[in-house]
């Protein structure tokens, strides 16, 4: 690359600052997410998976909740098709994420898009949406965040699978409660979005009822869809740009 070339210098400086912004956004999230990778690895080997199999789930699926659900179902000897259906149901929310995200991928090449969608996990979706609401979403920002998160998830799984047998009783440390309270905190980060309270209240009630009637994992898909339907009925907020900027300030912290 020609170092005397003005635009290329500008682009390099820009890439460096995008990379820095991605890492700054990612670090607090890693503190919250990595324990789940460790917990997953630990539970996986305690349930009888080998370290390689535990790593295979983290590398191939890269979605903590569905990995834990698959583990639970395999533990009770559920048939393969029911496990695959559960994985699909739990991860179905990503269809909605990728639909929303595809509005912001104008700067991405074809292969970059393919990689971007593979790496699309909940926190990355949140970070990308927040970023896109205030400036152009760059491949550098998105892929730095995503690749680092993927590598960290694998390392956390490896750590948990390697040392997991040392944790005698994960429940004594309240580790099973980390996931719900983490999701609760994430949800509250969206409370300034339009129609948040009717959406959340609907999802809450429907999820509890479905959980009670049909059991997991249907409460996630059906409860989620009920809240989304309410948002669709209420329609767009009047001042869209200001609302999304408030959300940016909120979830970016």
């Amino acid at each position, binding site marked *: 690359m020609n170092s005397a070339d003005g635009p290329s210098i500008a682009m390099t400086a820009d890439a460096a600052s995008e990379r820095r912004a991605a890492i700054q956004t990612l670090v*607090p999230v890693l503190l919250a997410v990595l324990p789940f990778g460790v917990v997953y690895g630990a*539970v996986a080997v305690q*349930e*009888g998976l080998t370290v390689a199999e535990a790593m*295979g789930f983290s590398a*191939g*699926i890269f*979605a903590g909740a569905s990995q834990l659900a698959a583990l639970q179902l*395999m*533990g*009770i*000897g559920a048939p*393969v098709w029911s496990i*695959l259906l559960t*994985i699909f149901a739990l*991860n179905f*929310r*990503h269809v*909605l994420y*990728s*639909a*929303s*995200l*595809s*509005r912001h*991928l104008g700067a991405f090449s074809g292969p970059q898009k393919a990689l971007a*969608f*593979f790496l699309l996990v909940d926190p990355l*979706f949140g970070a990308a949406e927040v970023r896109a609401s205030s400036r152009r979403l760059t491949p550098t920002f998105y892929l730095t965040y995503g690749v680092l998160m993927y590598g960290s998830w694998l390392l956390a799984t490896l750590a948990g699978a390697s040392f997991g047998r040392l944790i005698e009783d994960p429940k*004594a*440390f*309240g580790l099973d*409660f980390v996931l*719900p*309270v*983490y999701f*609760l905190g*994430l*949800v*509250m*980060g*969206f*409370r300034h*979005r*339009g*129609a948040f309270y009717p959406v*959340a209240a609907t*999802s*809450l009630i429907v*999820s509890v009822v479905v*959980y*009670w009637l049909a059991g997991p994992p249907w*409460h996630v898909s*059906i409860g989620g869809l009920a*809240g989304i339907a*309410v948002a*669709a009925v*209420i*329609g767009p907020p009047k001042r869209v740009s200001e609302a999304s900027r408030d959300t940016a300030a909120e979830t970016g*912290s």
Partner: protein
Amino acid sequence: MNGVPLLSDGVWSVGSIWLVILAGGLLTYLTRFGGHILISFFGTIPPRASAALDAVPAAVMTAIVAPVLVSGGWPERVAIVVCLILSFRLPLIAVVVIGTAMVAGARALGL
């Protein structure tokens, strides 16, 4: 998940575990680019659909958390409500630490 390694009973062969990993991975990737395919196919997103998409994270994550209110014991129920109130003021990681410590503490006391 009661700590007994049920997988070692032999119900699950190594091959079927890797089948779940590969097929589950493919299905997950399908969901991760499926929305993009749908949007490219149908073109632009109407405002109402866009409002619905904006509500996706809050709706889905609320649905994930909600059963704690009915499936957990009293320590979990109290902790999740306390965390809900704390989350108006405190950053996410602080709420996670406090909530987990509350539940661990309650269990240590045998509540």
